[in-house]
């Protein structure tokens, strides 16, 4: 049994079958990559895992509990954090504040009326945030306006925000899309580091084969809404079905 079990999930948009009979099992403490051509349904699948979309049929179990019918914040509180295709951060806030909020959310739950406490007095949470910022190599940016940073730094911050919650499952939707080569390499190094240092399960959608093969323990290939194969990276490279559906297209 994996920590995440997706069974027979279907999702239609009008007449379009975005997902049909999708099965996926992600084992604990592995990096599981989901690849496939544009429009294959990768993002749709991810959205079904975090409560943004509800599948028409099928089940999604996280750690033995169904996530279906729960709102995004409830699913996050179960231990799933998500990184978006374009970085979603609190642009108007400082980098430090961006890092504090997820830690507060983990400690205090979905809502707490802590209106007369002072952020400055929360030593423990500030220390945790500083720690994560150091891990992300962003300690020098703590006072910066988050919106004024480069795209690579925003991505780094977003990953840091997710990690600061110590999630059991981290979901990444094309974390290197639209990034310059240097930023991509930085992100890969960061993810490798995370994989090494922590007990964490990662499910990653990625277009860049270089990224996929340098990170993944297991790969699922999705084409036209259905999983084509699920296998170890070395077997995926040689698989003729994959070449046809995916590598052929990108070549």
């Amino acid at each position, binding site marked *: 049994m994996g920590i995440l079990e997706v069974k027979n999930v279907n999702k239609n948009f009008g007449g379009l079958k975005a997902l049909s009979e999708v099965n996926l099992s992600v084992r604990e403490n592995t990096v599981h990559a989901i690849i496939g051509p544009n429009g294959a349904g990768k993002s749709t699948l991810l959205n079904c895992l975090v409560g943004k979309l509800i599948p028409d049929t099928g089940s999604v179990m996280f750690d033995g509990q169904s996530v279906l019918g729960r*709102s995004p914040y409830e699913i996050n509180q179960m231990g799933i954090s998500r990184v978006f295709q374009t970085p*979603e951060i609190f642009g*108007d806030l400082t980098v430090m504040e961006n890092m504090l909020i997820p830690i507060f959310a983990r400690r205090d739950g979905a809502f707490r009326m802590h*209106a*007369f406490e002072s*952020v400055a007095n929360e030593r423990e949470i500030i220390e945790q945030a500083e720690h994560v910022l150091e891990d992300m190599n962003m300690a020098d940016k703590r006072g910066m306006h988050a919106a004024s940073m480069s795209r690579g730094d925003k991505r780094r911050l977003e990953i840091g925000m997710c990690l600061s919650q110590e999630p059991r499952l981290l979901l990444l939707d094309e974390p290197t899309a639209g990034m310059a080569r240097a930023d991509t390499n930085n992100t890969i190094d960061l993810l490798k580091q995370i994989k090494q240092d922590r007990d964490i399960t990662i499910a990653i959608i990625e277009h860049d084969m270089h990224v996929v093969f340098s990170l993944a323990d297991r790969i699922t290939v999705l084409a036209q809404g259905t999983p084509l194969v699920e296998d170890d990276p070395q077997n995926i490279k040689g698989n003729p079905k994959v070449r046809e559906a995916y590598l052929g297209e990108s070549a």
Partner: protein
Amino acid sequence: MLGLDKKDATLLIVVAVLTLCAPFILNPFPTDSAMAQFNAGYPDLMQRFIIFGIFAIGYNILFGLTGYLSFGHAAFLGVGSYSAVWIFKLFSYNVLPAIGLSVVVAAIFSLFIGFVSLRRSGIYFSILTLAFAQMSFALAYSVLSNPKFNLTNGETGLQVYADDPQWFHRDSLPDLPHLFGLSMRSTYTLDVGAWSFDFNAGYYLCAVIMMVVFYLAIRIFRSPFGMMLRAVKSNQQRMNYTGLNTRPYTLAAFVISGMYAGLAGGLMAAMDPLAGAERMQWTASGEVVLMTILGGTGTLIGPILGAGFIKYFENIFSKINDTVLHEWFALLPDGIEDFMVFIVHPFIGKGWHLTLGLLFMLVVIFLPGGLVEGGQRLSRLLKRRGTKAKPEDSEHRPEEKPHVAE
């Protein structure tokens, strides 16, 4: 001090000193001088500065922090006034229970209206609050005022009549709102040479209450709760995917701001024991939006500045008339004098709205951070002049955004 850092404590102290000394500061001109009409240090107007300051401080907790633009907050102010007057009618003229009840009733009202309106965001939220406020206005103006059931006394406005029960009223107490016997109208006038200064009991009650609620607002701004409210404004999607439920946060902010409005309404009735439906009209809701934006949305001191600015204009500019203008321009040759009066005329007296509108446009276009940003720019300019910083350095420095701290 009081759980505030040095900067906030300084701000609080400065505001405290300014409000306590306001009777002096606002009356800088000798009573008989031509400039005396610019004096604003009379009790009525000073009370209004403070009361609308409270209204705007509270409104800013909703609009400034979460970005939810409510067009209905005057409804809570009106509800607060009605509640207070009912306490006067039924129990006594003591202002404490009246003010207390106005806050509680406004809280209940805003809980209900907020719960419904916050199901939508953006323009739809604004329209919902506007609709609720106009419904409240209609209820107060006509529906809840009929011979069988007269809660608001319609057009005339709710007031205290001689045959009202006033169960706890005793003859030894003033026949006007009072605080344990101290009439809100009692005023001590200090004459110093050609100057005269009024110290009014009602004003000082308002001032003390404003200090308390301003302090509470600073605490909210600096709390994790306040940070969450700013996060709502910045990115709700990220909040949801970070395990935070935005709905109770926005509702809490809505109710808090509603309570501030109710407090303002209660104080208004405590200074002058009547309540009219026009207090709830949408123009009154719009005014608090203008105050907040003009002063500096999301800043601590901005709403107070904005409220003072607008109330000063409303009361002082509206009183300038052509006779006064002729006096001002008397030194000019007759033809030019008439011409100048002709030019300035539309902007004064009843035309003060025009002046305010133009000023508002200028501020929004050139100072998006409001008067607070203006102040910051001015002080930076002065500092630069003073220290003679390297000019090329200052040019390359990125524009700082106004921070919530100021």
